[in-house]
């Protein structure tokens, strides 16, 4: 059980907030591109406040990770090194991929282990993200700073006249907030932070050119929602939702974004004078009950100095236009073909239950606990389904489903806001509302590894508001076999740089452990043609466990690694 420590911090934090009028330059995460991505998750620290540093965790850095740029159609290979003290997972939020590569709660990476998932990028151009998804530990691990953006590019989006120069007129913004205790450590006693962190920067400012600028906004909060707008209430144009472009830019002055959601919009600074300033704001004051962060309390279990207030997300100075400035937006972005209710052959309902204050049971789906080895729903491959999720309990939620993008077809509370009229994987589920969406489950069947659906407010997810489904097909069942001695040989043995696996079986999974039981490598569905690279292993004895794709039976073989000469 995680106990939340230090209650005395609120007073101290309030005291120092007033002294923080200065702006800090917005940090823009580095990008990684290509088809092989090396990610190193590690414990580290950041100087957020004066005084002691804050212990954080980072990916290739100190707080928040690099932005991964994928090209649609490429097969991307991830080398995920867990150098944290703890086990973790890394989930590719919004990506359509095999469940065994998904990085959900079942693909646990022990400390000191390298996990190598890979998949073909089939998502259309949009903004996605990656983050830990360890059962009951997601809040703590996301709070520590683990996560990063994924930008998918494709030829259709690239052909449009849209701002696309990363960090110049195409600005990724990850929104989150944190609180600190007396020793400057993060505290998640309340899931709502006292300090706004925009790309990990407190009191962030940046200069943006006098032209159309694109923002890719991600809410990576533990629980807070944002009702975004500009300080002069100017109109801006939604160009994309979670999973792709919308048909045409949608003019708005406010957009609500809940944990896990992304929105892309373009805004023009062409009419501003150089040196002018304005703010991107969270207009979070006076919102409806159930909107996370609308609570009035400034301290306590759900308290925050930012609750029920309007606050700055980014202070913007307008600077000179760049040479490749976009001066007008295309009137048509794409032509999406959405599934409709009539296409669905299976309808499911889900209800958010429990979570009544004082009764001691957290939020659940259909009064059922999340249990790691229980599959809640079975989906047949290539089926179009309609899911209706009802929330009749005490608070709003942020519903997310893995594997697919869907189209929201109805909200019982009224009309579907125009800014979410596109491909979605996460949405705001209001109090007393039923939201229905339609989707097709295609490409990846796997009877063993499930996908998740859950609330993306981390405390709710960790508390059990999560379920899991497998996508199955008639041909992917686990075959029963009595085979006792499969052909499975490792060579050369002893090995120096590469171990080859000789077998007639197809590999579903390979793990390699060392003599003391430390997991070295986790290889989901490896391609064994080029062997397995063991150059980084210390000399010694290792055990390779091979899981057969057809039978899901596992077999272990020993090999010895020699020192390089």
């Amino acid at each position, binding site marked *: 059980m995680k106990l939340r420590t230090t209650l005395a911090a609120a007073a101290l934090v309030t005291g120092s907030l007033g002294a923080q009028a200065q702006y800090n330059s917005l940090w823009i995460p580095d990008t990684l591109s290509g088809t092989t991505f090396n990610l190193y998750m590690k414990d580290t620290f950041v100087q957020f406040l004066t005084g*002691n*540093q804050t212990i954080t965790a980072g990916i290739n850095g100190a707080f928040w990770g690099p932005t991964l740029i994928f090209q649609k159609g490429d097969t991307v290979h991830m080398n995920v090194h867990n150098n944290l003290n703890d086990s973790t997972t890394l989930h590719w939020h919004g990506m359509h991929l095999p469940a065994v590569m998904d990085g959900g709660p079942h693909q646990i990476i022990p400390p000191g282990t390298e996990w190598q998932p890979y998949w073909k990028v089939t998502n259309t151009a949009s903004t996605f993200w990656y983050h830990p998804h360890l059962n009951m530990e997601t809040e703590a691990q996301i709070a520590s700073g683990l996560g990063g953006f994924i930008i998918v590019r494709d030829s259709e989006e690239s052909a449009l006249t849209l701002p696309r120069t990363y960090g110049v007129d195409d600005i990724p913004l990850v929104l989150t907030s944190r609180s600190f205790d007396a*020793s400057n450590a993060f505290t998640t006693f309340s*899931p709502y932070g006292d300090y706004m962190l925009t790309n990990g920067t407190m009191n962030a400012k940046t200069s943006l050119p006098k032209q159309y600028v694109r923002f890719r906004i991600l809410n990576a909060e533990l629980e807070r929602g944002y009702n975004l707008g500009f300080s002069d209430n100017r109109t801006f144009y939604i160009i994309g939702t979670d999973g792709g472009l919308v048909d045409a830019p949608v003019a708005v002055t406010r957009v609500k974004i809940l944990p896990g959601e992304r929105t892309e919009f373009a805004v023009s600074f062409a009419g501003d004078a150089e040196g002018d300033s304005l703010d991107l704001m969270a207009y979070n004051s006076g919102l409806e009950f159930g909107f996370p962060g609308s609570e009035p309390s400034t301290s306590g*279990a759900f308290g925050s100095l930012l609750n029920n207030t309007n606050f700055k997300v980014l202070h913007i100075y307008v600077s000179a236009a760049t040479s490749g400035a976009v001066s007008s937006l295309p009137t048509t972005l794409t032509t999406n073909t959405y599934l409709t209710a009539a296409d669905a052959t299976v309808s499911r309902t889900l209800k958010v239950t429990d979570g009544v204050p004082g009764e001691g*049971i*957290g939020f659940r789906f259909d009064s059922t606990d999340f249990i790691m080895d229980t599959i809640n729903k079975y989906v047949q491959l290539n089926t179009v389904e309609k899911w209706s999720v009802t929330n009749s309990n005490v608070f709003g939620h942020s519903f997310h489903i893995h594997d697919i993008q869907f189209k929201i077809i109805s909200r019982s509370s009224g009309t579907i806001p125009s800014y979410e009229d596109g491909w979605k994987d996460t949405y705001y589920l209001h109090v007393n509302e039923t939201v229905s969406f339609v989707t097709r489950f295609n490409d990846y069947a796997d009877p063993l590894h499930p996908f998740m659906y859950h609330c993306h407010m981390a405390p709710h997810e960790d508390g059990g508001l999560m379920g899991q489904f497998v996508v199955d097909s008639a041909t992917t069942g686990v075959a029963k076999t009595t085979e006792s001695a499969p052909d499975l040989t490792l060579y050369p043995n002893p090995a120096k740089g590469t171990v080859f696996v000789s077998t007639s079986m197809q590999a579903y999974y390979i793990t390699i452990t060392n003599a003391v039981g430390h997991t070295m490598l986790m290889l989901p569905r490896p391609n064994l043609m080029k062997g397995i690279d063991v150059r980084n292993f210390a000399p010694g004895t290792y055990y390779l466990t091979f899981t057969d794709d057809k039978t899901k039976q596992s077999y272990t073989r020993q090999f010895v690694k020699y020192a390089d000469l």
Partner: protein
Amino acid sequence: MRTFKFIAPAALALLLSAYRPLPTEKAVSDFKLLATTGRMVSLADYPKAKGFMVVFTCNHCPFAKVYFNRLNDLSKKYGALGVPLLAISSSDTVNFEEDGYGKMKEKTAKEHLTFPYLYDGSQATAVDFGAKKTPHAFVVWKENGKLVVKYAGAIDDNGAEPEKVVHHYLAEAVDALLAGKAVDVPETKSVGCTLGIRAKK
């Protein structure tokens, strides 16, 4: 077990205080651990010492790394006053190869560590002290033939910028004890990487 967040704040505060064990004024056992010099070291090897600074640390943790220079200074200053400093690595070496005994020896030589750097492979000493983080500092004082914890927590209040330290918690505790006074701040929160205790097989 689920942490449920709808508990009233007052009730939670009570729960937290009830769960909080008193880390100081508890007696700890002596230990016998392998030092990077190759010798076995225990506190009984220091019959003239008034007390000890025992610091749980490790090679790999970025926050532990920034303190080794300061440990050298503390060792020099208070060792001469009869309060030796001993550093112990109880890190899980299955997870962290960088914390292995061989790497500890390398670090001792490379950084000219002036204090014993001990390898607690079984993690039993960390469990006995209740060490939670790296670094996690303790002052133990000899009292009626017992080793009594008088301070537990951080070394000081600024890891990366030693010149900006305001409270030298560990040194101030030793100063007070040497002057025959009670320790002003007997406990602080240790800040650093979580010290993972590997479950017994």
